[in-house]
């Protein structure tokens, strides 16, 4: 690559202003020479079945702008797409569709708006929408299920149990099983949780339900230290052949924990666009010391910076792990993990908090996690060991925060 003087000075100006304003401005716009130069790849071809499905839904929503059902179908399709492709643009699209109805929301739209709020970790607003949906339609199982899920993330297990019970009353055994099993798992009854998940799996008819239950069976088995069983469940889930970011992340974490990074490389090589999966890929590459690691770590750095620019704080758990494992900046990692734990209190959040606290020699930061372990009796041996280690830390040994 060659630079002329103009480019260098422009670059210098951009770097200075970039540093001043924290805008990522490393690149200089270019004018392609050839009309055939490809400058962007889109997620679908226009003729793909999924693109056509979306287009049909869009057309029917356009045709009848006041029709809440057409809007709900389109918003739901966008939201499903966001989940399958780990692509938040579709969440914004769904939000724009729903917000046209701000003052006359149908039950469907309320449930979808609740889902959109929870996606942005605005749990309070999500709970309000689910409550309104249930006021309109007390039999709306989805609203109960979502409320249960939010209470689980917030570690409000008594509230979560009430939602699970409502699902049972509405005769949704699979949803009830999934809900109950998680409450059991998070409150120190991993074996019962495993049995409950198995029962739910026996009843589950839909493939995506099976995929979810198998994934959770894998996680519960891993917490119980039964790696062979965990692997079998993960492989059964993968064999269903559905794209699923959560499953891939959980399976990659399992492979990393069992020192099999080479398999992560193979698994995730095509998933760079998804940031949580890129994080796991970069971890595996770093462990294996492959050349691609450096570029991927830099890409993650840029993406965290870009998210920060727009004021996005929904990814702090991942960023903490990134700072801890790939940037070796435990002081920043523990800050991020603690801020995340304030909002989300699942085992994954707890683990990164404990690991970061340990690396940063900050026993106090780990205290909320230790308290949770004590009050719930959560059984994962790895996490209990980590918590015990944070108690052994010398009381005062703060490392100053070093910006990356």
């Amino acid at each position: 690559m060659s630079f002329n003087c103009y480019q260098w000075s422009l670059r210098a100006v951009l770097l200075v202003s970039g540093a001043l304003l924290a805008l990522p401005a490393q690149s200089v716009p270019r004018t392609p020479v050839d009309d055939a130069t490809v400058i962007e790849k889109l997620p679908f071809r226009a003729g793909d079945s999924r693109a056509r499905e979306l287009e049909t839904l869009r057309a029917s929503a356009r045709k009848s702008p006041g029709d809440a059902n057409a809007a709900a179908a389109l918003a739901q399709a966008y939201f499903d797409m966001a989940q399958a492709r780990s692509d938040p643009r579709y969440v914004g699209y769904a939000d724009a569709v729903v917000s046209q109805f701000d003052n006359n929301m149908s039950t469907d739209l309320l449930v979808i708006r609740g889902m959109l709020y929870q996606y942005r970790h605005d749990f309070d607003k999500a709970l309000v929408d689910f409550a309104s949906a249930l006021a309109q339609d007390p039999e709306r199982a989805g609203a109960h299920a979502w409320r249960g899920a939010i209470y689980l993330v917030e570690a409000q297990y008594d509230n979560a149990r009430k939602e699970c019970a409502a699902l049972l009353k509405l005769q949704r055994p699979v949803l009830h099983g999934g809900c109950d099993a998680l409450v059991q798992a998070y409150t120190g009854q991993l074996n019962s949780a495993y049995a409950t998940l198995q029962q739910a799996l026996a009843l589950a008819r839909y493939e995506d339900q099976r995929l979810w239950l198998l994934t959770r069976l894998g996680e519960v088995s891993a917490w119980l230290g039964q790696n062979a069983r965990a692997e079998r469940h993960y492989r059964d889930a993968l064999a269903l052949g559905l794209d699923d970011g959560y499953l891939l992340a959980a399976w990659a974490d399992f492979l990393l924990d069992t020192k099999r990074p080479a398999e992560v490389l193979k698994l995730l090589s095509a998933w760079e666009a998804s940031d949580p999966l890129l994080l796991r890929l970069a971890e595996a590459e770093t462990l294996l010391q492959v050349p691609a690691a450096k570029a991927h770590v830099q890409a993650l750095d840029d993406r965290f910076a870009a998210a920060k620019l727009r004021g996005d704080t929904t990814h702090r758990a991942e960023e903490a792990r990134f700072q801890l494992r790939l940037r070796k900046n435990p002081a920043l990692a523990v800050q991020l993990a603690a801020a995340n734990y304030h909002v989300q209190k699942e085992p994954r959040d707890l683990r990164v908090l404990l690991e970061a606290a340990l690396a940063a020699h900050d026993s106090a930061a780990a205290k909320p996690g230790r308290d949770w372990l004590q009050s719930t009796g959560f059984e994962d041996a790895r996490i209990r060991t980590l918590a015990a280690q944070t108690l052994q830390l010398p009381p005062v040994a703060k490392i100053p925060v070093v910006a990356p």
Partner: protein
Amino acid sequence: MKRQLAAFILLVVCQLSAWAHKASDSYLAVDVQGRAVTAQWDIALRDIDFALGLDGDGNAEITWGELRARQNDIAAWALSRLALTRGGVCPLEVTGLQVDDHTDGGYAVLHLSGTCPGEAGALGLQYRLLFDLDKLHRGLLRLTLDGATYTTVLSPTSGVVQFGAAQTSRWAQFSQYLVEGIWHIWIGFDHILFLLSLLLPAVLVLHMRRWQGVSSFGAAMREVLWVVTSFTAAHSITLSLAALGLVSLPSRLVESAIALSVVLAAANNLWPVVEHRRWLVAFGFGLIHGFGFASVLAELGLPADALVLSLLGFNAGVEVGQMAIVAGFLPVAFLLRNTRFYVRDVFGLGSWLTMLVALVWLLERAFDLKLVSA
């Protein structure tokens, strides 16, 4: 519904995938020196494709040629969603197109330039790219105003943002929305036609089934005042109710009703039913027109920290715009009131034309048709 329940908890525990890829951002760097504006605006190609469709051959790849072919459309689309004001609206144009890459893919780089009416004072910026399609879209702004630098994140709720006049920002915000209000009555032809349909007969009186000019300016003035005041009062009520989120009507219904109001007002001139109580008509339909203004204001966005002030400003702007129309119309109409030209051509033919135009609007809006291409 069952299907969407299927993966319910999965979705929540999928938190870790919540920010994968990246939500949509555009990067807007604006430099204002006195009257001169230059800017660079990086907009994701995926976003342009979603809004306008770029992939001409449907192969899921956007080429430089495909982008270049749509430069004019892209420029018109982008510029209609960005407004700068300094002593008035600063017209902008796209002077160049390039490409660049950000963390989430390829971007079109639009180079803009323009000239502001004022060379000093506060700069107002209003941004609403993609907000109609993507509520999570954000504009990341870096503004250099006469050497001083500001950055901010522009969101659907940020409305018109003011820079460089902190101490007078409340007043500036008010006047910004005042200008928007004036502007929107001037470009809102349906509102103007409605008002004119009611004002045309104000200088006339029906005598033995024939229109004649009124005797005194005072009589005409009184009639106009009644009509304008009641129209104003009515649309202020509904504009406020709608803008504050207390009442909302489907926009198709509102737009159709506005068209219908113009049809009826014009028809009333041709076949008089209501003659002496036009202010009642103005009030009744004014309620509907208020909802129409509210949708403009919703598109504009109201800043959360100065909601009422901006609403007042917009409302006042609409009034000022109306008064300007009245002030231009009334003296001329009064002078011409006894001529055949006014009675037959302006009043008669004008009412016919207004009614026909409004009928076309009504059909288009009620049945979602496109009869006359814009």
